[in-house]
Structure formats: C-alpha cells, structure tokens
C-alpha cells in the first residue's frame, strides 16, 4: 500500500514537472516566462514582440535566405525548443544593415513589412537599444575615436557625439548593431541591449 501511494506521488510529480512549462505558457498573449537570456540575441528588424513573434513564425527560413548581409542566423536547441529554427542576429558577428527585405518576404507577418525610410523604421523597428560602457569606450578615456558614430546608419537621430567624439545614444536608436559590430575595443564598449517587447 505504501509503495502504491509513493508511486502515485512520484507519477503525479513527474507529470506536473513535465507539463508545467506547457501550462505556464498556455496563454500566448500573456508572457508568463521571459525568454532565456543565456545569449544576447536580436530578432530581425520589424519583428513582433517575442511571444507574438514565436506564435507567428513558421520557421521557414526565408528571412535569412533574402538577407544580403547574411546576418540572420538560426537557433538550434540553445534557446529552448520554442525558438528552434527561428531567426536571430548577433550584432558583434554580423549586424543588420536595415535593408528591410526580411519583413517583405516574411509570409506570416512575424517580421512586419517596414518601408526603407526614416519615419517607418523609427516607428516600427525595435530590435534593441545601444548602451555605452564609458569605462571601455576610448573616447571617454581621452583617445578620440567616434567609430560607432561613423558606423551608425541613423547618425544624429540614434547617436550623437560630443567633445572628443564621446558618443551618446539617443532614444530613437533602433538597435541594428552596426555600432557594436564596428567598435574597435575588445570587448566592445557599445552593446545592443535587446528589446523583446
């Protein structure tokens, strides 16, 4: 009898553990669990907020196949089963050039189409926002650099430089990552902090 109660308890616990991630995520609209942040990744430009993105993406791979800069990579199992074969960008390896072709080709609107003009890009693209580490940044150490500013496709809209080319990120930064890609410091002094919505 005792053994049976023990087995029941064991089975119940096993079932609860196995089902808990499913039950916790039963309502797609309400993010109950943040995506695993073990690696810092960006979704392609125009992507919906993370939960919505996962519900829309059919893992077809067309966004990567149209990217002229080959910056879009695909997850294996490292970010959880739900992210398997979904696109991501690691800006330090290859950053987004905001060509907006991926939104055009995406069949499910997981990556929304955005015209390649300033106003729509500022309005709809929210990949993340750059953050400067002043302890690492050369310009803040008195060695005039300004590479991040030169690399930015949205100069004076997303980033501005002051005395000694010291960069300052403005609130309109969309997080394409070209500054992080081009930073000459190792490790990079400017990083995109992803915005998963």
């Amino acid at each position, binding site marked *: 009898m005792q053994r049976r109660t023990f087995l029941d308890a064991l089975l119940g616990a096993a079932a609860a553990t196995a089902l808990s991630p499913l039950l916790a995520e039963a309502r797609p609209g309400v993010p109950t669990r943040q995506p695993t942040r073990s690696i810092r990744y960006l979704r392609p430009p125009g992507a919906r907020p993370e939960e919505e993105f996962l519900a829309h993406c059919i893992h077809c791979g067309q966004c990567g196949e149209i990217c002229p800069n080959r910056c879009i990579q695909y997850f294996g199992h490292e970010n959880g089963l739900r992210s398997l074969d979904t696109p991501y960008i690691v800006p330090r390896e290859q950053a987004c050039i905001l060509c907006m072709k991926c939104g055009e080709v995406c069949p*499910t609107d997981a990556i929304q189409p955005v015209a390649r003009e300033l106003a729509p890009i500022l309005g709809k693209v929210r990949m993340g926002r750059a953050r400067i580490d002043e302890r690492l940044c050369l310009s803040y150490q008195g060695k005039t650099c300004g590479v991040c500013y030169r690399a930015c496709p949205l100069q004076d809209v997303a980033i501005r430089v002051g005395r000694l080319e010291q960069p300052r990120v403005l609130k309109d930064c969309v997080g394409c990552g070209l500054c992080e890609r081009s930073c000459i410091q190792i490790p990079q002094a400017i990083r995109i902090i992803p915005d998963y919505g």
Partner: protein
Amino acid sequence: MGTPKPFFLWRHLNKLRWLSLSIVFAMLVALPFMHVYQTFTAAHAYDLLAPAEKQLYDVMETLTGVFTEDPAEDLDAIKGNTWSGSFFGLQLSDPLAIAGQMAAGLKLYAPFLLTALIPVLFTLLLGRFFCGWICPATLLYELNTNVSTWLSRLGFKVGNRHFDRRLKYAVLGVGLLLSAATGSVLMAAIYPPAIVGRELYYAIALGGFGAGTLFFVGTLLFDTLVARRGFCRYVCPGGALYSLLGRYRLVRIRRIAESCNDCAKCNAVCEFGLDPLRDHFGQECNNCTACIAVCPTQAMTFVLRPTDIPEQGPGHLGKQYLRAHSEKGSIDAAP
C-alpha cells in the same frame, strides 16, 4: 476488344514524377548557392573572395547571367522552400504551416491563409499529390526504399512491420494541440519537407547542418530498420492533413478488372502499402502512378470520381476468375 485501355502516356507519368521530384530538390540545393552568390555581389569584393568562393561566384555568374544583370535584386524573385516560399511575387505555403500557425497564434491572418489556397485547391482535386510529386523528403525516402531493397538482396534484414495508419492523424492532432499550448509552431521541427528545405540552406549557406538533420536521419533509419516508408505511412502530420483534404479527390487511380491478371505487382510497388489489387486506394493514395507504370497488362488507369469504385473481385485474366468461370461453363472463359 471491349475492355477500356488506359491512355498510353499514363504509364510514363512515373518518370515525370521523378523528374518533378528531382527538379524540386535541385532547386532547394541551388537556392542557397544563389543566395551566397547574391551576398558576394552585394559586397562588391570579388578580389577578396577565397579561391573556392571565386569559383562559386564564376559558376553562378555564368548560370544566372543569362537571366539577369542585377543578381543582388533580381534573384530575390525565388526564395524559400516547399514549406513556404515565394515565386515571382506569388507566395505559396504548405497547408500544415497554416494549420500550425493558426494553432500557435490562435487567430487567423488572411494574407498568410491565402498563400495555401493554390495547394489546397490542388489537393482537393488531386489528393495527396504533394507527397508523391513535390515533397523533397520523398525523393530521399524513395531512394532509401531502393537502397533497403538492395540491402535485403544482400542478406540484410530490412524492417517490414505494420502499424495502424491512423497514428499519423493522432500525431497531427497532438502536434496542433502542443503548438497551441506552447505558442510556437512546433510542427515544423518534425515535418521532413520543412526540415530538408531548411537543412539544405543551413548546410550550404550557413556552414553546417542543424539539429533537424539528426531527426531526418532517424526517420531514414526508421524506414530501413522498422517499417518500409514508415514515417510517411504512420507518422507524418503533413501527410495526415493532405490525406484528410484529399479524401474526396476527383482524380483517382482505378483498376480495370477486365485486363487485370492478379499478379499483385501493384501492391508490391505501392510505397504507401495500399491495396490497388482489391481496389482499396482510400484517402492515402498520392497518385504517384507507380502502380500504373509497373502493371504488365495495363490494367491501371485514371478515373474522375469522388470515391473509389466498389470492389471488383479478381482480375478477369487471373487464374481465380478463369477457374470460377470455366466451371460454370461461361462464355467469358475464353483463353
């Protein structure tokens, strides 16, 4: 002779089918190369390419130069794979992608729904034709069947177990439920055509196979060691959806009992383990026409009707029929 004869070209459709499968597969191999070439042209750095990359560039330039002056833009016309792709502005998707996305998102998105319209219409007309004529995994599975046959001739033990065909409908149902519960289209991870399209892209353009290859090789081993064409017959959720859509398909294969001699080659050749000899095609026939091609007496043909014709009994050229009718002294029993 009063017996109907099949149109003589039907026997050659199987070759056309292999051509179609090969073209689809070749496209899936060519597209990633085309994309890599596009990125090279977009980067304007021919001199900086490695020797192998230069070779690729030259070959692709020769091949595509006939059609386009501006590959970086113009080659965008064909992208994607059979799971979802765009072809000169026409977007096409697998119905299973639609079903999975609807389950995961719990709402309809009209432009995406429309991308499956053409495949669904064709499926209503031709049944599970995707499985036989287009699916890039089918090419590998059928080649795998041939390899298994050679292996068995060499004395290896090849699996030939049978399971319940309805298993795949359960896989489809459970897959949709799991997609809805997790809010992610999990179906894409176990659907071979989607896997093959993706993995070819990973291997060629991104420098290595992904996790899906392991799963796909697993299905090949399952087919060889456990059940012939087992994944397609018993597990594939897409096959299940296509079978359901094609249940009342208009274009069917039928047996002409008058010229059938009961040799059962059609049953032996049928990849899906159906029973053409007893007129049991059902919803799972994919009109692959292998039985038409193999029939020695030309007793297989197409018919336009929404259901299978009722069972016709033994073939009129077979021993069973001849014996039965000669005993009765019927005039039909002519040699």
